[in-house]
């Protein structure tokens, strides 16, 4: 491991009993890029993210996230890394602002800064009107937006998004993708997102990794994978074609 990349893993493996959820994963993610993590259900995407956050201990292998070993120094990693779980939950009896404030306090963000950020990020995800409503009354998509705002409240350097656009309406999806894009380009954040929505991934991701049955079968910029899998001359390709090709081979 060279230590120049924001995320590096080497032969990272996670076994649940006899089943290998993640099999000798070696990957690097550069600072500032948007990385799309693809793979069928049960491929091990969530498990990988959990290991990179120090929430699950790897069975073997090494990982470094912003220079720290997530198993040994989870605290350091969690200070700088944001995580939106697949199914994000909230304190339903509190309103959106109270939820955000609580997370901000846990991250030691000073009070005045917190209030400014809450206003800003609620605006960005399109919830500023609903900020004082109890989260229990939120729709699925509103919860998803609030989840994104909550991750961004600590303005992390690196964000793991587990299926971030699930449940969003078309307009919401577009705004979310634009937001993710601008986070990378304007705020220099690094985004690691897992998704099944390949057209979205194709739209915003700089590089993708395809994981099947715990094994990383491909990794690189989408054009590169296209050249490799679909032939040199093909101009019109979709990520879906590439993905299906890898999927059938595996």
């Amino acid at each position, binding site marked *: 491991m060279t230590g120049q990349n924001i995320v590096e893993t080497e032969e990272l493996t996670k076994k649940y009993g006899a089943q290998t959820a993640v099999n000798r994963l070696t990957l690097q993610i550069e600072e500032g890029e948007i990385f799309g993590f693809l793979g069928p259900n049960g491929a091990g995407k969530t498990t990988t993210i*959990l290991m990179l*956050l120090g*929430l*699950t201990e790897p069975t073997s292998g090494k990982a470094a996230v912003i220079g720290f070993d997530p198993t040994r120094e989870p*605290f350091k990693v*969690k*200070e700088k890394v944001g*995580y939106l*779980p*697949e*199914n*994000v*939950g*909230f*304190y*339903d009896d509190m309103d959106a602002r109270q939820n955000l404030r*609580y*997370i901000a*306090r*846990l*991250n*030691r963000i000073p009070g005045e800064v917190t209030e400014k950020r809450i206003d800003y990020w609620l605006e960005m995800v399109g919830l500023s009107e609903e900020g004082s409503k109890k989260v229990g009354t939120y729709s699925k998509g509103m919860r998803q937006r609030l989840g994104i705002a*909550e991750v961004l409240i600590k303005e992390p350097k690196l964000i793991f998004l587990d299926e971030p656009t699930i449940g969003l309406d078309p307009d919401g999806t577009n705004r979310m993708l634009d937001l993710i894009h601008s986070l990378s380009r304007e705020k220099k954040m690094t985004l690691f997102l897992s998704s099944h929505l390949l057209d979205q991934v194709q739209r915003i991701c700089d590089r993708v990794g395809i994981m099947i049955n715990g094994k990383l079968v491909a990794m690189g910029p989408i054009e590169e994978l296209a050249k490799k899998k679909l032939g040199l001359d093909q101009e019109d390709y979709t990520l879906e074609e590439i993905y299906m090709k890898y999927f059938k081979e595996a």
Partner: protein
Amino acid sequence: MHGILTIFRKELGDHFNSMRFLLISALIVMVGVIITSMVGMAIQEELRGMAKPTLIFLLLFTSTGKLFSFVQFIGFFGPLLGIFLGFDSINRERVSRTLSKLVSQPIFRDSIINAKFLSGVTVIAIVLVATVLLISGLGIRLIGVVPGVEEVWRLVIYIVISLLYISFWLGISILFSVVFRSTATSALASLAIWIFFSFFVSLGASVMADAVAPVSQTASGVDAEMLIRHERIQRVASLVSPMALYSDATTTILDPMRKTTRTLILMGPMERFSMSRFQSPLPLLESILIVIPHLISIVAITLLCFGICYFVFMRQEIRTV
């Protein structure tokens, strides 16, 4: 430290806003007031025209009156306060999927448990102090006696013992909330333990004593040695139960005419001698010395269950399931 404080503040707010807490503390206060009124009026009646004996104030807490004493009530019902404050503390967050979010913030994982435990202990302390103050105020009006320094000290120690005792139950219920994924299951498991210790341990203790040292009525009367063994076994066996520990400890502190936590039969000759000879209350310091082993036992079982809780929680896989 920062993490603990933040979670602690939130949990405390949650407790005070919850219907559950309001109901159970209202119940405790209500029963306390009713018992005190009954006991207080009875004492007032009996003492008419007499000089007030020493340490009479404590009778407010220990007299059984027509039903049961306040001390007995807390011994039996106090565990429910602890259980209700803790039984869903972790699994509630698991069900609402906030736990995985919480553990991905820059806090140590143990601060979640610590903060939840501490906020529960704080609530228990507030309820206990408020109730004892209320009863004392009522008592002062009813029997017209102001508690002396020693009585106040004994009450303070009583509150501390009760706090430890109820915190043990809080610990048990938090442990179950870590182990069981469903809040209903952890509530039931805590209640099962509570019922087990309240009813079956004392029953089991006497069954065991009967089996090991049967006391038979012979022509020459009761075999004294056997009776002593019987009592001793029953006592030791029932000390497994935190309720027995608690009731022993609190009676010694609040009822200083008793000089030992043991029953009459088990007293040595010197103890019995001194008891009949000097019908004066045991000094505070000696009462404390007698209950210290009990306190240590209660603290030890609390720490044990907290330790298990820690161990399980720190190793538990946090998934959004």
